[in-house]
């Protein structure tokens, strides 16, 4: 019996030692996002982006000896599934998680991570959010352990309307969005911000349609055409966006489209020439921005070579850069120390300097507006999805132009 006990104690100590050595050398990041189903292609592209950036970080030793490893989990875009996977990751001793697609998933994870950390002191988990853009996540429902690497939807609308307001040709704006919280947010903020910046602009339509249900967008296109709109603002993504643009082209709609997600997987292929010269997006990075640092081209070229796919999920780069710097500065991989170090931290990312605002953990960074045009090898060097078309950067708006106040009352651990 005694022998048995000492054996077990020995094994426990050995295991603990092995764990601590392992964690000192390798930080595992759980990637909890959709890898199958409707948005599977997008989720896979983003996973590859994280894997590629962590590989580069390991090679170039960004984190002073610490290595990174991505551990993928498929949440099938479901909040419930994500919470189960969060526990699974925690059971495996993973202390860093990342997620992006779907603010419903993001809000559930933000809340669950907060509760988990309160109940398990010493085992805290950090949540790096690379694409869930619901403003609530850094406002009313903000949390200390959550860090948003993307600009939230209000910030994007701020940048978009600032750009749009400078164009005197814009007189009639048509809003069309998917009928759920995000779509309604886009519609509401567009009206609010335009009223503030250009009260003379007329909103000639404000339509909602169900998410991923509409097959034939031609009635909407005819409606846009009949309204005489010169500009369409839409938060649509996926096939909802591609179909809208295609139907618009068929119906002879000549308006410009301002979107959030025209550059995400699948949309460029589906819209092809139909969007040329008409479709714009607001985002944190333009593949062809002249002022991009040289790393941007290295990462994009390297990613293309390795996966034969396009790198656009720049938040992965920002996330790994922030983590690396925090780990290097604190000489620790403990999430408690790392989280503290990341507050207010500035790093060089692929679009310039990104600052993680301390008050609400919202990243502040330059945003770009880009137009879908034929790749010409000069202004537009990188095309997307081998379509021969790419994004020409029209404007780079510095971080201050999109800044939003926050209502976040951050509760920090003692």
């Amino acid at each position: 019996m005694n022998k048995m006990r000492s054996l077990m104690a020995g094994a426990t100590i050995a295991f603990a030692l092995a764990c601590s050595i392992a964690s000192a050398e390798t930080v595992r990041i759980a990637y909890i996002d959709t890898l199958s189903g409707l948005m599977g292609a997008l989720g896979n592209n983003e996973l590859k982006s994280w894997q590629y950036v962590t590989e580069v970080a390991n090679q170039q030793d960004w984190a002073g000896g610490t290595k990174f490893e991505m551990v993928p989990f498929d949440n099938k875009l479901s909040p419930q599934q994500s919470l189960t996977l969060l526990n699974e990751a925690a059971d495996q001793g993973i202390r860093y998680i990342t997620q992006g697609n779907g603010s419903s998933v993001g809000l559930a994870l933000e809340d669950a991570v907060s509760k988990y950390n309160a109940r398990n002191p010493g085992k805290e988990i950090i949540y790096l959010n690379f694409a869930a853009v619901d403003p609530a996540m850094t406002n009313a429902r903000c949390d200390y352990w959550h860090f948003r690497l993307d600009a939230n939807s209000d910030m994007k609308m701020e940048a978009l309307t600032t750009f749009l307001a400078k164009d005197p040709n814009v007189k009639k704006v048509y809003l069309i969005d998917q009928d759920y919280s995000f779509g309604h947010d886009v519609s509401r903020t567009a009206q609010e911000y335009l009223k503030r910046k250009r009260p003379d602009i007329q909103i000639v339509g404000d339509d909602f349609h169900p998410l991923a249900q509409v097959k034939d967008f031609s009635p909407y296109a005819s409606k846009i055409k009949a309204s005489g709109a010169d500009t369409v603002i839409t938060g649509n993504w996926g096939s909802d966006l591609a179909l809208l643009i295609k139907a618009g082209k068929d119906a002879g709609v000549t308006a410009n489209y301002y979107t959030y997600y025209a550059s995400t997987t699948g949309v460029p292929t589906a819209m092809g020439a139909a969007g040329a010269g008409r479709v714009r997006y607001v985002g944190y990075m333009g593949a062809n921005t002249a002022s991009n640092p040289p790393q941007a081209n290295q990462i994009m070229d390297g990613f293309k070579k390795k996966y034969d796919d396009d790198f656009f999920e720049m938040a992965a780069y920002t996330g790994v850069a922030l983590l690396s710097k925090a780990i290097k500065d604190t000489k620790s991989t403990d999430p408690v120390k790392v989280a503290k170090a990341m507050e207010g931290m500035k790093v060089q990312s692929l679009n310039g300097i990104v600052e993680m605002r301390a008050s609400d953990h919202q990243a502040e960074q330059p945003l770009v507006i880009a137009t879908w045009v034929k790749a010409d090898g000069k202004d537009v060097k990188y095309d997307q999805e081998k379509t021969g078309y790419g994004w020409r950067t029209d404007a780079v708006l510095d971080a201050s132009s999109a800044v939003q106040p926050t209502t976040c009352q951050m509760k920090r651990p003692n």
Partner: protein
Amino acid sequence: MEFFVISLLNGISYGLLLFLLSSGLTLIFSMMGVLNFAHASFYMLGAYFAYAIASKIGFWPALVLAPLLIVVVGALVERFGLRTVHKYGHVAELLFTFGLAYLIEEAVKLVWGQSAVPYRIPQELDGPLFQVFSSVFPKYRAFMMLVSVLMLVTMYLVLTRTRIGLVIQAALTHPQMVEALGHNVQRVFMMVFAGGAALAGIAGVIGGNAFVTSPSMAASVGTIVFVVAVVGGMGSLAGAFIASLLIGLLQTFAVTIDSSLADLFGLIGLHVTSATPLSSVWKLSVSQMAPVMPYLLMVVMMIVRPRGLMGTREG
């Protein structure tokens, strides 16, 4: 007026495509009693086959070859799948087609990947056909209408005017008798299934490039085909035709109406504000409800006329 004409055209062309999509389902159900859950998958396969062929030898050969390939696939599915499970009854058939839908989707993902593929409208059909005042009607939509009507006429003629059509109709009601007369009823069923699948395949060939060719395209039309079949009446081709046009027009025109119940209340002096109970319901505009209309129609149909518009079976 201009808006009305263009909306009418949009509605009819969408309705015709819906008919092409769902006629095969109705055909198979009425002939074989099989509710084919994998029907929309043949639509997807049609689009992908057409994409693969079109990128090698062009759209026109694809228009012919892709449906022929689907005929082969459909025949194989019937011969080696459905016929084997047939003796275990309808539940087994239902489960089989249900599983097949998943199988086809995964196979498509394996071969062509998870994202959309660039299946494009051919150059000669890209562009406006004619103008209605200042709105344009695209050539490709007219082409879609033409193909749908052609298929409709062909199907009608084959079923009512040819010997083979007579055998098919006879096999439907009196299979034993037809067999006794020396016809191979099994082979008739195989032909019907393959033909029904091919109709969905043709819809895929002409719908895949008008919309988006991606692995989720089967799921996106999977429900609407059943709505058409139920509203039109299970097993009735004429019913499916009327239901398709009805749904196409209903959905298209609903999009154009921006009024809501709140506006209606406003007419009689009741003003809805955000403080009114259930205000979000009253403020829902008709256009917002448009994509739900077909389902609403189905529910109403189930209540007042369970056998559908032209159906012969009860419930």
